[in-house]
């Protein structure tokens, strides 16, 4: 069983946007800075006018790795992890669990799209090749 994130005032919108199929990213409404992981205060200008906006849910693989080691007894391996540069949120990356792809086929520069896995009150973003 994977550990779940604790839902906080900072991150609840991020972790629950998937209920409506949306990837929600925090933005500063004063300076337009995209903030990830989400914060209550803009790290760039210290404004508290932070609001979440839906982004397209697509992105490009900046880097990746294939995990072969089962870190927990019930962990199926191998699987791919990617760090994805998000479309619509300049400078923001997410660590991405990759599904529906041969792990060894995941490569830098590949375009990805998001989907969601619901466990309890959390909607995990998961990523698969866009084509």
């Amino acid at each position: 069983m994977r550990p779940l994130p604790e839902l906080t005032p900072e991150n609840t919108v991020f972790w629950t946007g998937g209920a409506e199929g949306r990837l929600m990213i925090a933005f500063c409404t004063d300076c337009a800075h995209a903030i990830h992981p989400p914060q209550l205060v803009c790290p760039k200008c210290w404004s508290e006018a932070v609001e979440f906006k839906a982004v397209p849910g697509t992105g490009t693989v900046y880097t990746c790795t294939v995990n072969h080691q089962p870190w927990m007894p019930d962990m199926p391996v191998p699987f791919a992890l990617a760090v994805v540069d998000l479309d619509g949120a300049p400078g923001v990356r997410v660590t991405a669990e990759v599904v529906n792809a041969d792990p060894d086929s995941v490569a830098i520069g590949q375009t990805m799209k998001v989907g969601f896995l619901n466990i309890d009150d959390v909607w995990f973003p998961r990523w698969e090749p866009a084509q």
Partner: protein
Amino acid sequence: MTLNAAITGVGMSDIGRKTNRPAILHLAEAARRALDSAGLTKDDIDGISTYPGKADNSPGMSPLGTGEVRNALGLKTRWHSAVPDGPSQMAPIQVAAMAVATGQARHVLCFRALTESSSQTATRRASIPGAGRARLGGWYSYLVPANAMSASNWAGWMATRYFHEYGMTREHLGLVATGQRAFAQHNPAAVMRTPLTMEDYLGARMISSPLGLFDCDVPIDGACVVIVSAADAAKDCAQAPLTIEAMGAALGSQETWDQRADLTTMGAHDACADLWTRTDLKPADVDVLALYDGFSIFVPYWLEAFGFCGHGEAKDFIAEGNIGPGGRFPVNTGGGQLSGGRLHGFGLLHEACTQLWGQGGGRQVADARVAACGMGGGFIAGSMLIRRD
């Protein structure tokens, strides 16, 4: 520029795998050896410092804080500190140096104790943060729930990007692993001393691509103590004081493993750039290197961060034989954590001091006088230059 602080003694317990020996016995052994090394007694110690403090965020990661050690060893101190959020596992050394330089204490016992080997079981792996807990907070919570649970994953994706941009291959990292194993054969305290060939390295199972088994350091049980003394007090010690020439702790990016704009660099690059602003020494003045090798890929990052070679040049620097036995810039001469065991940087500093005191035996670097030490990986970084005058 020089701090009015010096390393005067080091001690390491008989480290091992599955020792099933309580952490405090490892610690007491390391402390006795450090006091012997410095020519001090228990009553001379008036400060204590550690990273991160007692913590159970992964099994055996930090069984002892300053409280446990003060109580067990009966220390009366003028100053104590545990630093979980400082510049890497080096933080307790850096704050101890500042404490003695400002007169808060004269001789500080800095320690690191781990029982990660004995604490591992079939369901509890070392260095897996939060495993088994219901909910995670902080930066872990954006990585671990995505199944990016291990630092090998985070280091693995750094390596993938670095390989992609600069043409490094697994053979280059194999030279790091096999070179450090060659050093370890001359270090009776290292946990892995059998010869390691490139064929062994390349044939080992993958952990998180492109990192395989021998790119990962070895969980152990053990403790290491480093005594940091005020410059005037250091003159009374048994060995030549190792003056702390400069330290670096800068960090210009977020505290997490995926957001730094250029993941072919890491916190080390910030910490080293800051260090060089505080000294007239140059990389060419360095004789021996202690570079954090929780994963082999951190070694080329640290080489470039310190400026021993340019960005993207570490693969050639390594292939030219600079860092192994007989090289111009020997790295981790005790075998490092890859072959010596994971003491979270303290073991690397212990070895650098051993070299500067000329006690390296069959692995001694001739007339080593200046050591560069870098601890940490990813956003975690602290750097230091020490010298024997």
